[in-house]
């Protein structure tokens, strides 16, 4: 299933890029990511506890960064396997500087398997969009934080999600 969209962040491109490839930021922003441990130059082992509504599961897997071309492009691959099934998401991110903002263009693929694939087909697209929104909302908050300030709190994201999700939704196209 294809997933595409754009997101405007109120921060300079370099700062956005740094946030995107920073494992601490990634761990805070990949929805439900409880653990992200470096296992290689650009690979990490991950534990992701995520879901929508009461549908939740723990996924063990990995995150990989590829094709890094600072500050304009990279590719992220997230894979996880758990009781609900497995998921694989990959995305190419392109960053463009526009005055004081950065436009992040995202184009990716989501594959699911196991139980979620066989019973949840009608919701996979919506869930994937929701998680992508959470990721970028969080990322925006991180990138917009001044260097040296403490990172944004978890609770912020629920509120941010409510404020932003309606607006951001309009930016996503199939």
């Amino acid at each position, binding site marked *: 299933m294809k997933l595409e969209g754009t997101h405007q962040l109120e921060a300079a491109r370099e700062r956005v890029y740094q946030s995107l490839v920073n494992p601490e930021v990634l761990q805070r922003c990949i929805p439900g990511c409880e653990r992200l441990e470096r296992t290689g130059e650009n690979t990490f082992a991950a534990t992701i506890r995520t879901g929508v509504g009461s549908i939740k599961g723990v996924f063990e897997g990995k995150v990989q960064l590829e094709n890094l071309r600072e500050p304009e492009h990279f590719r992220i691959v997230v894979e996880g396997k758990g009781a609900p099934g497995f998921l694989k998401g990959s995305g190419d991110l392109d960053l463009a500087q526009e005055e004081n903002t950065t436009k992040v263009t995202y184009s990716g693929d989501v594959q*699911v398997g196991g*139980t979620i*694939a*066989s*019973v949840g*087909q009608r919701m996979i697209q919506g869930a994937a969009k929701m998680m992508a929104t959470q990721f970028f909302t969080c990322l925006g908050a991180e990138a917009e934080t001044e260097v040296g300030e403490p990172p944004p709190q978890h609770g912020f994201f629920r509120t941010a999600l409510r404020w932003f999700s309606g607006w951001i939704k309009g930016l996503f196209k199939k």
Partner: protein
Amino acid sequence: MNDNYVGRRVKRTEDPRLIRGLAHYVDDISLPGTLHVAFVRSIYAHAKINSIDTSGAQSAPGVVAVYTGQDIAKIGPVPCAGALPGLKVPDHRVLAGNKVYFVGHPIAAVVAVDRYAARDAVDLILVDYEELPVVTDVEQAAAGGPVIHDAFSDNIAYRLSSGEGDIDAAFAAAERTVKQRILHKRLAPIAMEPRGVLARYFPGEEELTLWSSTQIPHLMRTQVALMIGMPENKLRVITPEVGGGFGSKLNVYAEEALLGWISMQLAKPVKWIETRRENIQATIHGRGQVGDIEVAFKNDGTLTGLRYTVFADLGAYHQLLTPAIPTLTGLMLSGAYKIPAIQMNITACFTNKMATDAYRGAGRPEATYVVERGLDLVAAELNMDAAEVRRKNFPAPSEFPFHTATGLDYDSGNYEAALDKAQAIAGYAELREQQRKARDEGRLIGIGISTYVEICALGPSQAMPAGGWESATVRIEPTGKVTILTGASPHGQGQETSFAQIAADELGVHINDVTVIHGDTGVVQYGIGTFGSRATAVGGTAVFIAIQKLKEKAHKIATHILQADASRVAFEGGKFSRQAAAAASAAGTSEPVVPVAEAPAGALPEPETEGKSSLTLQEIALEAHIAKNLPPDTEPGLSATYFFEPKNFTFPFGTHIAVVEVDRETGDIKFLRYVAVDDCGRVINPMLVDGQVHGGIVQSIGQAMYEEVVYDEQGQLITGTLMDYAVPRASHVPNFELDRTETPTPVNPLGVKGVGEAGTIGATPAIVGAIVDALAPFGVRHLDMPIKPENVWRIIKGH
């Protein structure tokens, strides 16, 4: 026969227990100490298994054992009975070895004290998969790409061409031709009761009993005995009540052998009941063909040739009849028509999906569908009426037995009579007129017609992998009760009633005094089972002939006891009577049936036969057992066994007419009428026949409009539950206007042809034809199933 029961809508003896919830299905059977089995099944369509860590499961509470592919290596492969030249047969074992090749492929079996512990332990098993490229498209599988089975160099299981006549010449000389690509998507049989197995091994007696929801207890026994190394005569297979099969239980499944083997290892009863999700993943699928139909014809609509080139999606391995099903399609490509040249070219391929196999119609719905769609295309090309182009190509009744260019001899038929009757009931000419008017008003009404023939009552043993006969033992007990042991294995068809009807009429007894026993290899002589619409035509005939043998013996005993001349003793109304010379023959009188008297309590009475002029069958039965006054050279007892070998298949036929209206705004499809005239030869119980036609039409509606098993490109089964796989409900189904013609078959003395699959075969093309006809104003000539409202809306919108 005294036509007292046969031909009447006798209520089923099966129903009271079913309706009151008193029947016993596999899961209703409770044995003390039963352990429960749950499976770990692959979530990948194609992957290597690098390792399986079962330690967490083995130490989980309540777990007794965990088995994987290494443990079961000595169990023989899951059998395939389809023998075709050059067929590649993968070595498929009851649990995966170092590779999985479809989602649902069983990898490990957990045995625990209850279902809950077993299911929890499944989650503790860690499988290290290494994904491999997935093959899901059957045409791509044929063309090349990743090979699923390491033992083979490609994914083509076999290629086969069949048919008679010079097909190339027919197409070369054709005045006109049409060609159409046609898809038959995979369907899931969705029997109401999923599969289940209970196995109990007695180590002292070295006896294993398997209760299984199966259609073929004896055949399954033979195969499982070989698979697990059990002497066949120490393995007993019992089918309790079976909640539907539709062909999906005409098989030998891994779980049957594995449960038997596990019970032997643990010396405890073990049980496995399939969940619906497992049922959709790991019980066979039906259909799965994609191909081109080509028809050669003259300008006046006479057919001169037909060619079907098809890719068959077999799935990742073979179940019992997987490779054979597409060949059945080839047999029926002549349909109800005279076609001098026919050719079928099959390329059958492996894909990373569950195996396909027999599902109601088993290859014949595909044939009828492509032929009928072909006829509709011919009609459209020539601007001829769809019914008339069919009528033009029918063989006349005098041309039967009718030899087809597919190598068959149709037994009997009167296709025009069925068509005439259906058209009369439907008011066909008026319907076409109403359609014209409706089109002028912009309404989209469509009329579809299907004139089908199907091949059933499988069949002559020469043509059947495991034999095609059927067995019956009929006994009259000392108290006069009649017991029938049939090798048929009904699972909803109602032979406990229909065979009793036959016996009651033949023997002049009350139907309540006849008991039909089936589905227990410890009790019933070897039988082939129920599938292919064969139970009454083949099994019922065996019952009938066994009864004739019984009557001969009873007659001999009666003659002896009555001290009369054999020609002067006649059987009528349940009695053998000494006749006056003139009245020695009796046929077709309507004497009332003599009900069987209740047996007196206590000892059997001495037969009182001194000076009698007639003897009831019950008196003869008693005589036969007490054996004090039997004719010389006569064995005691009153029992006869017959194994009936049919000389041909039978060929039921009929005409279905569907009328639909399409909502221009939404593409919704509504039935306005549905007429079906089916000819299954002699009808034993019209209510049972109606029921079969109803069910068959409903499953056709399912295929035409709602059902498809969907795997995505990664081989993930997307339609994994009934939330997505749309089995028709009552609200989706129109009222049926059913009628019959009755053209008996010469193949068996009952004249019965079989009807279990005919509805599923005849209805689909009528339904699709009607929807296509509704959209004819938009230039539509064909639509692939399932036809959903969105498909229709897009066509209308495009104009």
